[in-house]
């Protein structure tokens, strides 16, 4: 392969430069803003680290939204990955109509989350929503008031998120399962007849890299969650479902406090950086 040619740079540079312009430049801009008291449309004053101090020590809404986000991330990752794995194991067998099922499970992934949130609004409606209609029919007289109490609202959002992302875990894990070599299983079935042992000692260890990838990707996406709480609960009741991204949005683009919002964004960036650094090397190996 000719390696000295400079032409090869023409292939990769446009993409790299594009991304550089459209992400690094805005990031530098907001790094500067983070050290200013800057309200959109008004003058800016340099205030050192005041924005960061305020966020970390003087802002209960910061910690609230951080807590809400972590709760959503944990619930969403745990539930989607385990449900996805269960479904993948279930479908990993010769089954009539498997292609149809896979197609069916693809559609939620490409449903606009914002639209899904509004749909959730009608599904969880207290009097005439689908969920409570079913609960009424089952004889439950006082089903949860989904949007006016804290935990039901959070659970409703998690449920919608699980609905949307379980198919992702399912499809990826199914692909992972189907890529496992048959020979190992043939040999293993000679030694044991317990499908639990097969799962525990063969499938699970072999599937670990895929499980790892899926969990990481889900975690990264879940940390950005904004659309569903935005449309379904507007962060309410109170700030019970106000995710971190949502809080930044409100601070920067509703209250026009650009400086403080930039500082908040940088804290999120820092958290994401810590998380990604902890698995960076393993992730890098996947792209050998």
């Amino acid at each position, binding site marked *: 392969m000719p390696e000295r040619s400079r032409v090869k740079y023409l292939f990769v540079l446009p993409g790299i430069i594009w991304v550089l312009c459209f992400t690094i430049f*805005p990031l530098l*801009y907001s790094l500067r803003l983070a050290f200013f008291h800057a309200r959109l449309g008004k003058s800016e004053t340099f205030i050192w680290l005041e924005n960061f101090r305020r966020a970390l020590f003087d802002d209960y809404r910061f910690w609230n939204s951080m807590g809400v986000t972590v709760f959503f991330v944990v619930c969403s990752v745990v539930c989607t990955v385990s449900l996805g794995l269960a479904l993948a194991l279930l479908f990993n067998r010769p089954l009539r109509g498997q292609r149809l099922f896979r197609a*069916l499970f693809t*559609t939620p992934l490409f449903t606009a989350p914002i639209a899904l949130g509004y*749909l959730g*609004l009608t599904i969880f409606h207290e009097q005439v929503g689908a969920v409570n*209609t079913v609960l009424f029919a089952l004889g439950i007289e006082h089903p949860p008031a989904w949007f006016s109490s804290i935990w039901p609202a959070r659970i409703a959002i998690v449920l919608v998120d699980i609905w949307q992302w379980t198919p992702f875990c399912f499809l990826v894990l199914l692909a992972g399962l189907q890529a496992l070599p048959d020979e190992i299983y043939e040999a293993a079935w000679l030694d044991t007849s317990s499908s639990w042992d097969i799962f525990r000692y063969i499938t699970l260890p072999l599937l670990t890299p895929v499980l790892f990838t899926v969990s990481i990707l889900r975690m990264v996406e879940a940390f950005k969650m904004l659309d569903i709480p935005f449309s379904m609960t507007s962060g309410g009741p109170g700030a019970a479902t106000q995710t971190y991204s949502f809080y930044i949005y409100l601070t920067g683009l509703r209250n026009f406090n650009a400086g403080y*919002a930039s500082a908040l964004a940088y804290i999120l960036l820092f958290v994401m950086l810590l998380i990604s650094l902890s698995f960076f090397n393993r992730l890098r190996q996947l792209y050998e």
Partner: protein
Amino acid sequence: MYQGRSTLIGKIALWVVILIAVSWAIFPFYWAIVTSFKQPGVIMTTPSLVPWLQFTPTLANWNDEFTQRWPEISRALSNSLIVSTGATAIAITLGTMAGYGLARFRFRRWKNKDMTMWFLSQRFLPPMATAIPFFLVMKFLNLLDTQLALILVNATFTMPFAVLTLRDVFKELPKEMEESAWVDGASHFQAFFRIALPLAAPAIAAAAVICFAFSWNEFLFALILTYRNAQPITVVIAGVEHTQGVQFWFVATRLLIAILPPALLALTAQRYIVRGLTFGAVKG
């Protein structure tokens, strides 16, 4: 490999679980469709799930959507279409080239792996972190409420999908054909356009579909950067609330209009979905 005992009970249990899973997956769609055929008055008074049995379906909501409210919807749809197409075109053009470059050449100064991670890291970046500067820059450039602003944003966010997926696809293509083309005197670009590109065409089309769907569904930046003329469908559906409380019938028709194009389109990319969504880390 599966080696289960297929007893009758086992089979029945399996299909019951499958049935539950499938109904869970399609229920929200079912609910949206059913709701869109309900009389506005009926919706808020009596809960109901089954048409004809529990209520008489009506076409009134759809009729309204396609006559009275059509100007607003059609403008939003055309904005979405233009923005998604434009963003996809940029992301796929640059992404195909970068993906090919990363798959075929070895770079010394920056390693291939590092450049790949550079693209991947874009997906880890919370969009909220760039939203405020983007808003300020677009305001400065006088690009607020234009389709161009959204095209630029969406191209940036979908490019990593294109690069990483296509890198993986090109890696799997045999490179002997291109090498013999080089020997015969073809330039890198000729080999790329005449040999690699046609071979990778189905995968490129699938990557384009994924980029298109993600641009179509993007909400945050669309909300921030547009306020009237360039509003795509995701922002317009956000207007369904708050005017007079939740108008179920309105929500349902409009959501279906917004949801269907990318969801149906995505079905054509079935074969590459897993690979695309995991950035090539898992082969589908």
